[in-house]
């Protein structure tokens, strides 16, 4: 028998280089680095921008390894590699890239996509004949774990690639990946893990999260591809007539038209779906000839509509697309010449990523135009330019100790072949997210899925995961079915599908919007006027209408806050503005407004903290401006209000934006005393925040997602209204019940923990308070509303904090008349 020597790494890389050359490409340094590292058996993370050839940096060595394996022995069919894409839209392009190389290299590999869109029959086929390369999402990967015979399926796995890892990292989908990877590594020790990511502030940590405590060698590969981004603001013609507050920016619509004319295709990003709808409408109003050549793209529109828009973008049929973060990701649209960002993006990385969607050819300039929606937001234009120039990019904070995801994962395994607790305990200890889980916490998680937690009743009928011969399993088919339907960590509110009477889906709106409509009402959605006809089984039937309408659905979604990078640059711009040493056109334009702020109050420098006291018929207002972003202001205002309330009975309503916050009370607020007695110190910070009512309210809201992920709230079958009898409930209710009956509950504690880490950003809050301690407090008593305080004052979203007895407050309140 003739023994053939397997090809060396060097020979394999030559194969890859030859293939690249045949395509007319030149392998880049980072691609060679990845090929080499992969073939040496290393794990790693590659940071490279979209459109730089990052896919082949990792596809290639996976295929090269297959060539090597084939030369050693005839290979069995079956799964060798999994490519994780965060969104379905990316899967097709990866499939095509892989297929092309596989064909040319003469490998007999098959490639398949498996997502929520994959039909049941294709999925069944895949189960019988797993492809060698599977392109899928984290959710679909967990669906595979929930199958019988999963271990067998994965036994020959060589590699998992997590593409767009930065997209997953700041979400619970990353935790889902960590858990799946921990199991796969246990099943196939030869498996490598790689990630591909955009640049973040915390690349090393990003790699640690992906790899956990995998003992293999690891390497971080950085592609040295730099993009030049040009940032300019659309300056209002007359700042005196420009609004002091607002967030839609429709006033600037006609100024955006020249940008559309100058470029082949423009993407207009708005911060929310309803603003995208409004901009679409407003553009058609000022330029009716745009009808038919502009498109609308957001997450609530029907998939087919979005696909059509994406295809039309490729085909250069559209002059502009108004979109939301729905187009942040996805395949590149080469014709895009310019980007417009309406309203502050709040985050430098997001802004840079959007800018990067224009000017695709290597070395091409990316152009982005920032449209401020109110006067002060002009400062953000200047701040963004500075941040981009200095290359400041945010970190993404990974979720840790997400017990909701862990509970879901355990049931997923139990629905599949079942698990032995000691094995899984060992596996999860290798993940970044759960390496600190104590034995006691583990017991609690197991109890949660097996006995439903501590029970006080003699006859308890809890049933979910059952233990047979040490194997944890789900035996009840109804429970297994419901669990499969709810795998995933992307939560959403109940939505109603909007459908034409004659058939054809348009998209989804929130139930709360639908419930406010009367028959015959006309509303604007998906870029058309629609008349509400009827609602049945979670479907709203509509017909087209000629009538114009004012109503636009709004979709829930938290308001974004300045990232830490954004707040730092904004403070620097503010400081230079106060000192009068800035040359930014945005700040120059703001001149008259800043003069008014100076006249009525003060423009603070970096070493000053501005406090404004104003009295109106609403009551006593105190405004404080730390310029730290909404998230930090949320915690700071709750802290200050709580500490003042300890001095005597008082109630506050609290509002905030990214620049500052407001305390409003019927009584005079002893703000001078508060600063004199150091009420913004960091002593007992956590203790005091946790005691402020706001924190509880925030935790309650956080709990909505947690309850859904942990399987407490079943959302029903997708698109179907088939309710499960008498099992409807709300996360709110669960929160109250847990607080009363089981205050030590892990999920409840997680809600509080998430508030501290992600919402109040405790570490940022602490730094901010330390910074304030060094600042000079400047208290002013403006005779009337100032440009700084106005946007906060008119904000209707408010928090409440009180130390008065509820009944005393009620006595002064009125039940609302409507």
């Amino acid at each position, binding site marked *: 028998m003739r023994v053939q020597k397997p090809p060396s790494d060097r020979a394999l890389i030559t194969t890859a280089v030859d293939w690249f050359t045949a395509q007319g490409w030149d392998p880049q340094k980072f691609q060679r680095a990845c090929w080499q590292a992969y073939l040496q058996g290393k794990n790693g993370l590659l940071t490279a921008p979209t459109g730089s050839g990052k896919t082949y940096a990792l596809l290639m060595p996976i295929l090269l390894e297959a060539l090597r394996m084939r030369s050693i022995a005839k290979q069995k069919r079956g799964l060798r590699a999994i490519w994780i894409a965060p969104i379905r839209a990316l899967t097709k392009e990866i499939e095509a890239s892989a297929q092309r190389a596989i064909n040319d290299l003469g490998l007999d590999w098959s490639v398949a996509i498996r997502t929520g869109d994959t039909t049941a029959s294709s999925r069944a086929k895949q189960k019988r004949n797993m492809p060698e390369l599977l392109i899928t999402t984290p959710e679909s990967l967990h669906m595979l774990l929930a199958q019988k015979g999963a271990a067998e399926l994965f036994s020959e796995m060589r590699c998992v690639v997590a593409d767009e890892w930065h997209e997953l990292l700041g979400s619970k989908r990353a935790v889902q990946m960590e858990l799946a990877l921990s199991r796969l590594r246990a099943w196939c020790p030869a498996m490598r893990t790689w990630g591909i990511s955009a640049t973040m502030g915390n690349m090393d940590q990003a790699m640690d999260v992906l790899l956990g405590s995998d003992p293999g060698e690891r390497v971080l590969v950085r592609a040295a591809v730099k993009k030049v981004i040009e940032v300019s603001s659309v300056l209002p013609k007359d700042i005196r007539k420009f609004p002091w507050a607002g967030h839609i920016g429709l006033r600037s619509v006609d100024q955006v038209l020249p940008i559309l004319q100058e470029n082949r295709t423009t993407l207009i990003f708005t911060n929310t779906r309803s603003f995208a709808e409004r901009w679409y409408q407003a553009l058609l109003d000022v330029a009716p000839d745009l009808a038919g050549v502009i498109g609308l793209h957001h997450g609530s529109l029907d998939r087919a509509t979005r696909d059509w828009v994406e295809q039309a973008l490729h085909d250069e049929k559209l002059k502009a697309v108004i979109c939301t973060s729905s187009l942040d990701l996805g395949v590149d649209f080469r014709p895009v010449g310019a980007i417009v960002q309406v309203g502050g993006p709040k985050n430098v990385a997001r802004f840079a990523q959007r800018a990067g969607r224009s000017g695709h050819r290597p070395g091409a300039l990316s152009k982005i135009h920032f449209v401020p929606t109110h006067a002060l937001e002009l400062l953000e234009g200047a701040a963004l330019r500075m941040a981009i120039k200095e290359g400041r990019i945010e970190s993404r904070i990974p979720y840790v100790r997400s017990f909701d995801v862990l509970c879901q994962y355990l049931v997923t395994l139990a629905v599949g072949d079942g698990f032995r607790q000691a094995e899984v305990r060992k596996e999860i200890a290798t993940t970044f997210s759960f390496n600190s889980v104590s034995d006691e916490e583990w017991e609690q998680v197991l109890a949660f899925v097996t006995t439903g937690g501590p029970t006080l009743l003699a006859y*308890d009928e*809890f049933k979910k995961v059952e233990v047979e011969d040490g194997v944890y399993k789900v035996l*009840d088919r109804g429970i297994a079915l419901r669990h499969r339907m709810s795998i995933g960590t992307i939560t959403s509110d109940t939505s109603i599908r909007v459908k034409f009477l004659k058939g054809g889906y348009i998209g989804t709106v929130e139930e709360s919007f639908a419930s406010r409509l009367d028959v015959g009402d006309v509303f604007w959605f998906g870029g058309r006027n629609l008349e509400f006809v009827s609602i049945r089984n979670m479907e709203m039937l509509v017909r087209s209408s000629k009538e114009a309408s004012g109503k636009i659905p709004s979709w829930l979604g938290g308001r974004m806050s300045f990232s830490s990078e954004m707040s730092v640059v904004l403070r620097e711009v503010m400081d230079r503005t106060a000192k009068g040493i800035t040359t930014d056109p945005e700040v120059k334009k703001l001149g008259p407004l800043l003069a008014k702020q100076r006249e009525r109050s003060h423009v603070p420098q970096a070493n000053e903290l501005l406090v404004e006291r104003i009295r109106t018929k609403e009551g006593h207002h105190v405004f404080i401006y730390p310029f730290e972003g909404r998230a930090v202001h949320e915690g700071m205002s709750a802290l200050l209000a709580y500490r003042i309330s300890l001095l005597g009975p008082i109630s506050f309503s609290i509002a905030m934006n990214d620049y500052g916050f407001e305390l409003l*009370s019927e009584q005079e607020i002893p703000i001078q005393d508060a600063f004199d007695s150091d009420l913004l110190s960091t002593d007992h910070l956590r203790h005091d925040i946790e005691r402020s009512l706001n924190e509880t309210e925030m935790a309650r809201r956080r709990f909505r997602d947690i309850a859904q992920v942990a399987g407490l709230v079943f959302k029903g079958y997708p698109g179907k209204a088939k309710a499960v009898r008498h099992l409807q409930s709300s996360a709110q*209710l669960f929160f109250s019940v847990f607080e009363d009956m*089981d205050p030590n509950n892990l999920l409840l504690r997680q809600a509080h923990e998430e508030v501290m880490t992600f919402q109040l950003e405790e570490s940022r809050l602490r730094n901010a308070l330390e910074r304030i301690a060094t600042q000079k407090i400047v208290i002013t008593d403006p005779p009337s509303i100032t440009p700084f305080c106005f946007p906060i004052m008119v904000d209707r979203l408010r928090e409440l904090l009180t130390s008065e007895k509820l009944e005393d407050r009620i006595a002064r*309140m*009125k*039940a609302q008349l409507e």
Partner: protein
Amino acid sequence: MKRAVIQIRKEKLQLLPQKAMFWPTRKTLIIADLHLGKAMHFRRAGIAVPSGIEQLNLQRLEDLIVSTRPIEVLLLGDLFHSDLNSTWQGFIDLRAKHASTKFTLVTGNHDVLEEQDYTKAKLDTLPFLDRGPFHFTHHPTEHSSLYNLAGHVHPGIRMVGKAKQTVHLPCFFFGKTAGILPAFGGFTGLYRMTRKESDRVFVTVQDRVLRV
């Protein structure tokens, strides 16, 4: 515990902070929407609601009966949340301790137990009940001559104060021809009512009932 009193069609009714009503002339305790067994129903489906909520509900009911000493307990529907489960035995035991008290259930949409289960609990079930000036039902309704008292809605009201303060509270809600009781059960939500000038509304706040 401070109760409030309302006069309807010349009858005085006491509104209790425990989210129940007492009718002194007939010594009748009136309660709506207990939703007993709800937590257990969820637990059977693999949803880990703390089980203590069931005991707490039963204990609250027991305390209320002991403190008001009624001749009759009138339940305005949704006594039991869904299909039979072990919490029903808890109710049977409680009921047996008060053998001399009459228990009547005006059935609601959730009351789907078998006839024999109600019999076992020595519970009379009726679709509605007319007594004195009142027409008792589960769903709020109109009656040509009698004043309707009902449950089903789980009424709550939004209170608005100065300085943009708001708070939601469970309430008793009395219109011109019908009144609605708050839900008694601990694992139930609130439906936000809108009131007219003529409506009389009482909120329950900790251990008091306040007219608002």
